[in-house]
C-alpha cells in the first residue's frame, strides 16, 4: 500500500484547492456579495500570474523584466497589477447589468489572453515564462509540496478571515443591500457605483494573487493556463456549486469540484485502454451532467448563504 503516494496526491490537490479557493473567494466578493457577473476571471488570473513571473524570475533576453525580486514582492505586485487592471474595466463595465457585464468581461479577458500570447517583449508570448522561484522549493519533493501547502493555506486563511470580517462589517451589509435592491440603496444615499467598483477591484486583486500562487507552484506560466474553460468557467461552477454568498461554500465548492474531477478520471480509467481516449470525453460529459444535477436539486449550492441575509438575485420573472 503506497499511502505516501495517496498522501502526496492529497497534498497536491489541497494546494490546488487553496489556489482556486482564492479565485472563488474573489468571485464570491463580486458575485455572491455584490451581484457582479465577472466572466473574465482568467484575465485577472493571468495578469497576476504574469506580473509575479516578470518580477521574480531571473533576467532573460527579449522580454520585459526578469527582476529576480523576492517572491512576496511578486505576490503583492500581482495583486496591485490585477487591481489596476480591474479599475478601468470596472469603471467602464459596471454600468451594465449582469449578462452584459459578463460578456464585456469575457471580451476583456480574451484581449488580455491574446496580448499575453502575442507580445514577446512583455510576456515572452506563446512560450511562456519559466524559472519562476517557488518558496522553499529546494526541499525534497514531499517536503516542498508540504511547505507550499502551508504557505497557500496561510494565505487563504488570511484572505478568508479578511473577507469574512469585511462582509460582517457595515460595508458588507451595504453591499448586500445594493445587490438585493439597488434602487433602495441608491435612494438611501449610497454611492452605489463606487461601492460596486470597490468590490470589483478587491475581488480581482484576490484573483491576481491566485494567479501568482499558481505560477510559482508550477515554477512556470504559459498561455495555456489562462484558457477560459479552466480559469473562468470552472471557477464559476465551483462557486455556484459551493453556494455563492457564503465564503465557506465558495471554498467547499472548489474542493468538491477538484475532487469530483479527479474521481471521475479514476472512474473512467476503469475502461479498457482501447477506450481510454473516449473515456476522457465521457468524463467531460459527466462533469456537465453533474453540474445539471446540482443546479436542479441544490441550486442554492451546498452551503447556501445564511437565511435572512439574502433574497434571490434578480426577480424570478426578470
Amino acid at each position, binding site marked *: 500500500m503506497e499511502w505516501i503516494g495517496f498522501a502526496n496526491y492529497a497534498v497536491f*490537490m489541497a494546494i490546488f484547492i487553496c489556489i482556486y479557493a482564492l479565485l472563488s473567494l474573489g468571485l464570491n466578493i463580486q458575485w455572491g456579495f455584490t451581484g457582479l457577473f465577472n466572466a473574465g476571471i482568467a484575465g485577472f488570473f493571468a495578469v497576476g500570474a504574469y506580473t509575479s513571473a516578470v518580477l521574480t524570475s531571473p533576467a532573460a533576453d527579449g522580454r520585459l523584466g526578469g527582476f529576480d525580486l523576492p517572491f512576496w514582492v511578486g505576490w503583492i505586485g500581482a495583486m496591485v497589477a490585477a487591481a489596476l487592471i480591474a479599475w478601468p474595466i470596472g469603471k467602464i463595465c459596471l454600468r451594465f447589468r449582469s449578462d452584459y457585464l459578463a460578456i464585456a468581461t469575457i471580451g476583456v479577458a480574451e484581449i488580455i489572453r491574446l496580448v499575453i500570447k502575442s507580445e514577446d517583449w512583455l510576456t515572452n508570448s*506563446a512560450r511562456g515564462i519559466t*524559472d519562476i522561484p517557488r518558496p522553499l522549493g529546494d526541499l525534497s*519533493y514531499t517536503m516542498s509540496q508540504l511547505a507550499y501547502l502551508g504557505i497557500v493555506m496561510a494565505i487563504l486563511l488570511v484572505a478568508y478571515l479578511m473577507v469574512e470580517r469585511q462582509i460582517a462589517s457595515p460595508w458588507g451589509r451595504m453591499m448586500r443591500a445594493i445587490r438585493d435592491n439597488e434602487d433602495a440603496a441608491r435612494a438611501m444615499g449610497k454611492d452605489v457605483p463606487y461601492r460596486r467598483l470597490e468590490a470589483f477591484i478587491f475581488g480581482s486583486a484576490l484573483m491576481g494573487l491566485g494567479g501568482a500562487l499558481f505560477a510559482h507552484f508550477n515554477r512556470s506560466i*504559459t498561455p495555456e493556463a489562462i484558457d477560459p474553460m479552466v480559469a473562468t468557467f470552472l471557477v464559476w461552477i465551483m462557486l455556484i456549486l459551493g453556494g455563492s454568498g457564503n465564503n465557506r461554500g465558495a471554498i467547499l465548492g472548489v*474542493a468538491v469540484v477538484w475532487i469530483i474531477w479527479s474521481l471521475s478520471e479514476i472512474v473512467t480509467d476503469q475502461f479498457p485502454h482501447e477506450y481510454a*481516449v473516449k473515456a476522457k470525453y465521457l468524463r467531460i460529459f459527466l462533469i456537465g451532467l453533474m453540474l445539471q444535477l446540482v443546479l436542479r436539486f441544490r441550486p442554492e449550492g451546498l452551503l447556501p448563504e445564511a437565511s435572512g441575509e439574502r433574497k434571490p438575485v434578480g426577480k424570478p420573472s426578470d
Partner: protein
Amino acid sequence: MKLFQTAIAAALLGATALAAPAHADVKIGLIGGVTGPIAAMAPPMIASAQLAIDQVNANGGVLDGQKLIGVVGDSACNPQNGTDAATKAVNIEGVVAIVGPHCSGAVLAVANSVTVPAGIAIITPSGTSPEITSLDDKDTVFRTVPSDDYQGRALARTLLDRGTKKVAVAYLNNDYGKGLAEAFKSEFEAKGGEIAGYAAHEGEKASYRSNLAELASGGADTLVILDYGDGSGLTLLRQALENGFFENFVGADGMKSDATFKELGAENLTTFVASSPVGEKSEALEMFNKAFSEAGGDPSAIFVTTSYDAAFLMALAVEKAGGDKTKVAAAMREISSGSGETILPGEWAKAKELIAAGKAIDYKGAAGDHNFDEKGDVPGAYALFKVGANGFEMIGEMK
C-alpha cells in the same frame, strides 16, 4: 463549520481510497492532450505509444515477465490538468516514468512542479518549445522530438537549396508555430533568402482569407505554413489553394498529416511538401509504419513516430534500470547513446536479451536515432515529403 470540515475530509479520503492500489504490473504514464486544443492529434499518438507497450508485452514483458501498463492521463494541454494528471500518475498509479505530456506548456509545468522534484523521468514526443531545453531538470526530461529550433533551420536551408529564395510565412500563434517560425526566419534570412510576409494567426478561426491576402501582397509564390495539418493549418492550406494566393506550399512535421490529402485531395496537393523528422536508417521507419498500419493506426499522423519511440525508449530504460524509477533517467542515456548493438522498433526480445547479458544497446527509432545531447534534446534528421498516390512519400533527406 463542522459540516464543512467533515465534507472536505470525507471527500479527500474518498478520493484517495477509491484509487485502486498499484500491483505487480509495471506502469508508465501516457499523458497527453486528449481533450483540449490538440485533441485531434492525441488519439493516434497515444495509440502508437500503446503499440510499443503491446509489443513489449507480446515479447516477454518487462523485467521478470511483468506486464507493462500504460496509464493514460489527460493534460488537456494546460498546466492545471497536466500537473493533476502527472501527480496522479506518479503518486496514485505509481508509474515509474512518464511518456508525455504532449504540449510544451504542460511539459514545463509538469516537469517543474511534479516530476523533477519527484525524480521521475519524462520523455515528451511533441513538446517542441526551446524553453524545455533550458529547464533545470536534473537530467530527467527528454524528448524524442527535436526542438523547433533545429527543424526550422533545416527547413530554411532545404528550401534555399531547392532554389526557393522568397517565401511568406504563416504560423500558428502558439509555442510550436512561433518556435519554428522564428528559427526558420533567422536561418532563411541569414542565408540570403527573403521573407516577404510573416504573420501569426490564431487557431480555430473559420476564415483566413484576409490573412492570406496580406501575406500574398509581399509577392512571394511560396507559402510556409507552420501549423497543424488537421487544425487551422488545413483551413489555411485549403483557402490558399482555393483562392490561388500561392503556388507552392511548405509545411513542417505538423502539416504532414493525412487530413491534408484526405480532405483536399492528393491531386490538389502536387505543390505541397512537408518536412518531418526521420531515423537515419529509414529501415526503422518502415518497420514502424508496417507495425502501426497492422495495428490499425495511421503511420503518417502527426507525432506518432516520436510517440512510439518515446514509449519504446521508456520501456527499454525501465528494463535497463531494473524497474527502479530513480534509475530510469540515467538508463535512458545508456540505451540510446549511439554506441552498442542497434535496436530497431519492435525488437524488444533482442533488446531484453542484450540488457540481461549486460551488453550495450543503441535504439534507433522511427523518428530518429535519439542520441540525446546533454540537455536531453535530440538533433533530429529530417526528410522532405510530398503527397503521392498512397499518402506521403519521401523525396529527399534534409541537412
